[in-house]
């Protein structure tokens, strides 16, 4: 197999909260075109790992390297979240964090913020350039809504959407920032089987059509095993396994830690 272009390379990432080591020298890679998954029992440190990568926390040790195509490598440690997003790495949240009093379309339009540049004065004068940019924001946001199947709700308030739709809106909003790597934190949490199946398709579509690499945290084993490769497993802050779905299924350590009962009924 030819060497694939690595988008994200995390080396020995460690995060301490006081005396508690939430993430303990975890290394991980996400390559172009991949849908990687990070799994593990509750409290394993997956979300902390995400927060370190996206700049919400500054990791204690380790390197987070981003290799955008055709651009020099950047080290993300300690960068502010908005800078990380500007670099092309977008995320969604485990507990939905939408802008609930804004319309669905506006939520996606916020995602376009870092790719547009009208300032205060241009907004007040409302010249031609600003209006064109504005219209272009609307168009591209609407396209994204169509992609995730929410176009008909575009003028509703985000808080009035059903739960599954809110999750998809978060994905659309993250995609509006033009990322090349998308981090999804439990995108299927709280969804029913039908919604999960739709999400499954959506994630594959994003990966194939938009050529966006994806790293997801998920508890829904069916979803993970279906679409992702490679899979990384964490427990108590440490990485205990990595490999293809088959390898993970057969790994005794993983079965012991986490998958034991799950694989039987899967």
């Amino acid at each position, binding site marked *: 197999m030819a060497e694939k272009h690595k988008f994200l390379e995390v080396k020995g990432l460690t995060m301490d909260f006081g005396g508690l080591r939430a993430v303990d020298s975890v290394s991980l890679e996400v390559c172009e075109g991949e849908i990687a998954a990070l799994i593990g029992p509750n409290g394993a440190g997956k979300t902390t790992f995400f927060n370190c990568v*996206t700049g*919400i926390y500054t990791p204690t040790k380790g390197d987070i390297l981003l290799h955008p195509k055709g651009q020099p490598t950047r080290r993300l440690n300690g960068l*502010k*979240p*908005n800078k990380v*997003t*500007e670099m092309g790495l*977008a*995320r969604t*949240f485990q507990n939905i*964090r*939408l*802008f*609930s*009093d*804004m*319309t669905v*379309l*506006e939520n996606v*339009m*916020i*995602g376009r*913020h*870092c*790719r*547009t540049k*009208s*300032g*205060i004065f241009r*907004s*007040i004068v*409302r010249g031609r350039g*600003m209006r064109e*940019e*504005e*219209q272009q*924001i*609307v*168009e591209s946001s*609407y*396209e994204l809504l169509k992609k995730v199947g929410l176009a*008909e709700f*575009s*003028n509703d*308030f985000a808080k*009035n959407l059903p739960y599954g739709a809110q999750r998809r809106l978060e994905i659309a*909003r*993250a995609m*509006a*920032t033009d990322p090349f790597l998308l981090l999804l934190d439990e995108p299927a949490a709280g969804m029913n089987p039908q919604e999960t199946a739709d999400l499954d398709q959506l994630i594959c579509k994003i990966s194939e059509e938009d050529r966006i690499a994806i790293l997801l945290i998920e508890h829904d084993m069916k979803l993970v095993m279906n679409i992702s490769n490679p899979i990384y497993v964490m427990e108590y802050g440490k990485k205990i396994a990595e490999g293809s779905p088959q390898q993970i299924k057969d790994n005794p350590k993983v079965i012991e830690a986490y998958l034991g009962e799950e694989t039987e009924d899967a």
Partner: protein
Amino acid sequence: MLRGFKQSLIVSAWFVFLTFPLMAVRVNTTEQLVEWRFQNLLWVALATFGLSYVWRYMLERKQAKKQVDELGNEKPSKTRLLMEDMSFRYKAMGALLVFALVFPLLFDSYQVNIMNLALIYVVLGLGLNISVGLAGLLDLGYIAFFGVGAYTYGLLNYHFDLGFWAVLPVGGVLGCLFGVVLGFPILRLRGDYLAIVTLGFGMIFQIVLQNWSDFTQGMAGISKIASPGLFGIDMNITGSITYIYYIMLALVVFTILVTMRLRNSRIGRAWIALREDEIACVAMGIDMARTKLSAYALGAFWAGMIGVLFAAKQAYINPASFGFMESAIVLSIVVLGGMGSILGVILGAFILILMPEYLRAFAEYRMLAFGAAMVLMMIFRPQGLISNIRQKYEYQGNDLKEKTENG
């Protein structure tokens, strides 16, 4: 129905009991007699009984409405539909503007003067609306920026004899600068903490004004501040009031225009996103520091400008005009009107400023009525007079037809 009757009965009995010593018993000290005024109790009982019924009815209505909201098939009310109808909006705005323009011709200068005061608060409300209503940054010391503007004009006029028009932009810019200066230390604060720090800032400002006598002339204040000039024409008092009214009106229209445009722009959306969820907002690539500072600075800008006009209107300023009470009133205007709503803030300002002026006859009960109105407001319309209406964007891509067919 019967339950309502019973409950109202209990309420009125309770009130009769509570007000008994006040309303029924009167000791006549000269004749050493105790008078029993039982018919007063009857009035209390009847009034509370009636009020309790109204109260229950309103609560029930609110509950019913809430249920409809939860079912999701909420029907937009008639007023709402009317407000979203663009042609009606333009007509209404035009009519209002014409009325505003002829206002000084129709009423005497006392009314115009009161209107001037109300318009000052409209601008203050709209300015605070940027930081509180849009960006969600609670500011309890907002009046300090207003004071900065007023003192800028007062001092520059006193020492250097600078005119109104020269100082107007300076006041705005200085207010803006103070906004940024205050903005830096509070970038990391949120909610309660932010409220306390801004409150402290407001207090510090007033205390500095009071005590730095060499610079601000302390409690004595600055007097004989020049009115705005109009090509050196001499004006009598009425003329000057009318002139200030028109300047004020222009400033109000300008403020409305700017806030309206900002609200539905890239910057305005960033402010609202910041209000809704700070973490999600930065994760979507919005620079928090810059967005917060711009909201503060812009809010303060209006306060600074209108402060200059305030100084010119009053011709005399002292620290007493820039206390916490004024900050609280401006904040009440924003909350009463509806956070983020321009029309709401304007209505709020008129209600809160004009009502006390015209209720001077009931001067003693003014604050009581004011407080009661606020409490009722928070129970029945916590979202303010005008609730949040967001812009609807039109999609002009390939499937425009499909969109319009869907409605």
